[in-house]
């Protein structure tokens, strides 16, 4: 057992209101620079939809992530040792600017300089790359809230397992439904971007698992952009280097949650330490597709298990980190309650960001202004939900419906539990049956409710203790030598080379 610590995350999708505050705070903090205008290290997508960059989930086109080869060994879908070399010169699978969008601004000065005339002066849009006027054809969140649109939602790659009837049903006006999917870098435990980097510029920090790009080592070969199946590594067209979400490590190192976590209006984001067994990663990621969620959970370790604690101490993980892991909301959501699921585990990168799938609006009917819902068929209503379970399974469990249904059952059971405790209109026996069927106890239901609906920042962010001092103290080589300059903490002006 090789116990390592990781900062991991949970996004509770039921609480996401799609306000994009996270995206904006990230943009203002990190990507408001020339060359990075088009980058959204944090973005919020409407699902069903095509996402950003367009159709990023379609790995037949972008060729990201890992696959199992004929001998059932893990191998990169592309960019491995056999094919990376010619792709240095031209990479057929790399997304181009038009797959994201051309960033633009407006000629505001025209508003002031326009001569007196009968018409209102206008500020025309100009490209932030060429400076020329552009006709805007795409932008960030271009398909925002456009579920049901034949142009965007219908092309969602996750529909491939749905029958045409199911699709038609999903898009019939009465049933149109959508959810928001906020995405940042997953800081995977088996990152394909790191594995694909020809220069060895991408690396994972051993202490907290944050994945970074060493800007001094990056040579702009762009393999990571292709290899990351989530398309969360971006190419800076101005500096000729790749950049990605750095999980606001300067904040994390001082005990603060990242900017997008901190500003989240819906308070959907949870962060905490997680212990995992690095030795088991490879074996787990070779699991058959339907077992991937379970395999991924098996890599994560119970931080209260004395054996795990002993091993963790032996590996030099500090007591503060172990304590943070024990109290981590992430461990509760992912392992204890099994509510949170990884996004697209079939990419086999072992993402360390987990999503609680959205429970759909309560299915009921209103008769003569009295709202009714049929409690007997409570669990069948999950299967008849407006967003088909199959679709959610494509997103969160590699097509296997079981883990999603299990999570949904629990979420719904908590809802009934809460109804019973506030309204008292559910018989105790029925409530017990519902809870038993969902596989949770009353105490757990109470805890889930508390952590979902009532948490303060100290409950959501179980930040492990400071690492910066720890990392500098007593190191045998200086950090800038060992780590290189990482992320954006640069002393040299990031100017485009000649």
């Amino acid at each position, binding site marked *: 057992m090789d116990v390592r610590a990781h900062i991991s995350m949970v996004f509770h999708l039921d609480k996401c209101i799609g306000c994009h505050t996270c995206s904006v705070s990230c943009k203002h903090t990190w990507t408001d620079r020339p060359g990075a205008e088009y980058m959204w290290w944090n973005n919020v997508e409407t699902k069903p939809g095509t996402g950003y960059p367009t159709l990023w989930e379609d790995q037949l086109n972008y060729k990201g992530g890992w696959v199992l080869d004929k001998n059932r060994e893990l191998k990169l879908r592309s960019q491995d040792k056999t094919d990376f070399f010619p792709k240095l010169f031209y990479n057929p699978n790399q997304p181009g*600017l038009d797959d994201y969008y051309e960033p633009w601004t407006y000629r505001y000065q025209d508003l002031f300089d326009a001569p007196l005339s009968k018409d209102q002066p206008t500020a025309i849009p100009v490209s932030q790359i060429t*400076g020329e006027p552009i006709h805007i054809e795409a932008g960030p969140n271009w398909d925002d809230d456009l579920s049901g649109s034949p142009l965007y939602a219908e092309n969602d790659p996750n529909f491939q397992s749905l029958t045409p009837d199911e699709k038609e049903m999903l898009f019939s006006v009465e049933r149109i439904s959508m959810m928001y999917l906020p995405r940042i870098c997953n800081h995977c435990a088996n990152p394909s971007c790191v594995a694909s980097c020809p220069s*060895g510029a991408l690396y994972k920090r051993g202490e907290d698992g944050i994945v970074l790009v060493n800007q001094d080592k990056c*040579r702009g070969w762009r393999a990571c952009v292709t290899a990351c199946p989530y398309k969360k590594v971006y190419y800076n067209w101005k500096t000729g280097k790749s950049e990605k979400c750095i999980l606001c490590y300067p904040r994390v190192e001082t005990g603060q949650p990242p900017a997008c976590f901190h500003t989240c209006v819906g308070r959907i984001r949870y962060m905490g330490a997680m212990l995992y067994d690095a030795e088991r990663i490879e074996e787990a990621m070779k699991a058959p597709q339907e077992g991937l969620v379970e395999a991924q959970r098996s890599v994560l370790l119970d931080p209260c298990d004395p054996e795990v604690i002993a091993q963790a101490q032996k590996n030099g993980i500090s007591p503060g980190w172990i304590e943070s892991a024990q109290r981590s909301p992430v461990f509760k959501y992912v392992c204890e309650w099994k509510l949170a699921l990884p996004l697209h585990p079939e990419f086999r990168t072992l993402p360390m960001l987990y999503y609680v799938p959205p429970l759909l609006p309560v299915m009921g009917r209103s008769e003569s202004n009295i709202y009714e819902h049929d409690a007997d068929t409570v669990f069948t209503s999950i299967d008849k939900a407006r967003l088909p379970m199959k679709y959610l399974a494509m997103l969160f469990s590699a097509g296997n419906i079981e883990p999603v249904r299990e999570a949904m059952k629990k979420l719904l059971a908590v809802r009934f539990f809460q109804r019973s405790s506030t309204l008292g209109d559910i018989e105790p026996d029925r409530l017990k049956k519902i809870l038993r069927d969902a596989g949770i106890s009353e105490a757990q239901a109470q805890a889930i409710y508390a952590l979902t609906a009532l948490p303060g920042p100290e409950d959501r962010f179980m930040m492990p203790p400071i690492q910066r001092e720890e990392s500098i103290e007593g190191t045998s080589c200086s950090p800038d030598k060992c780590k290189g300059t990482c992320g954006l903490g640069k002393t040299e002006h990031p100017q485009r080379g000649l």
Partner: protein
Amino acid sequence: MFDQFLFVGLPYVAILSLVVGSVVRYKIRAFSYSSLSTQFLEDRWLAWASMPWHIGIIIILLGHILAFSVPGLWSALVSVPVFLFSVEALGVLAAVLSLLGLVILLIRRFVDARLQAVTSHLDVVVLLILIFQVSTGLAVALHHRWGAAWAPGALGPYIHSIFLLQPDASFVKEMPPFVKLHIASAWVLIMFFPFTRLVHALSVPLHYFVRSPQKVVWSSSRAQVRFEEKIQFDNEKRLFLKAAVGAGASAALLSLGVLDKFFRYFLKQDLTNAEESHILSQKLQRLKQSAAERELELERMNKDSIFVARLSELSSTRGKYFIDYQMRPALAFRDEGGLPILISAKCTHLGCTVGQDLDGQGRILCPCHISYFDIKTGQPSPGSPAKSPLPHLGWALKDEQGNLLMSQDPGGRREGAIGPSQTEKGLLFIVKRFS
């Protein structure tokens, strides 16, 4: 003087600039090392530009490096006609590919608005130098064919002289203009290399082939305690690997020479008597040849004049080969007046030996690239690849007793005279003071 600057001064400036420039830039501005790919902004044309350019130039560079670093092996290889033909064809194809790629690269820089946002003046300059370099290379290949065969012999010594710190521009002075341009602009390119985007060629990620997939960097002391052993082990392994690669490479180089003998030893064990004697006689012949060469050299060092032929033996249509004081081939003819004409037989183009037969217009032919030379003036015919004349040699005529009858210096000034009766008996010599 200008040649000295281009082919002796410039190379050292260029090499110094390459080494110092690249290292200093890497040390103080590592961030600026990047391929600066523009595929993100424009990828429709790039596939047709970057791919042919890179593939073409890699083939060409490998060819240049092989030909000039192991000229012996290379010459042995190109002496097989099939190999020579394929190498020439492949080289020209690769040059055309890379030129095509460069031109598209240049055009797209000007046509695409997005690309102009990232195009610096230096990008254009680099592309123009590269286009010039590849064009002159292509011109040499097409105009002076079989470069794979002649270049290692003709230019190899120059390259070696540079690297052995005994620069000798005389090897390139006589070269045709295309070759000189190609060499000079190569040095210019090398000089500018570390200050341009070309530095990305120094970071070709070959280590990716041997790297383990994941990379984890630890910085805290506590984690380090645990990983120190592993890191140390890795370092040792790496050192060992480096040493092994180094030793392996040098062993491979050594074995290139040894293998030749080695294989012969094992493969040709059951030689018949006849074969063995054939090989032996060939060996003997080679020894004799080289002994004869040494003798000739010695003779030329010691003697003031050397016998070429009896005047009566000379013909006016078919020259007689002999070796001049510089150990170069030369030809002896007889003119209408019965007096000798001595002319160098080393082509002024790329140094082939000129043929001995006169054509109808009194010219001799260099078979390598079809240069005709008039033997009276030495001048090449218009349109020949060779541009400078073959020099004449001075001579002296003596009688049987060794008395000097007549002489002519390389400039054509004569001393003394002989009557027609004496021409038949005259002995032709070349003279040290004339050479």
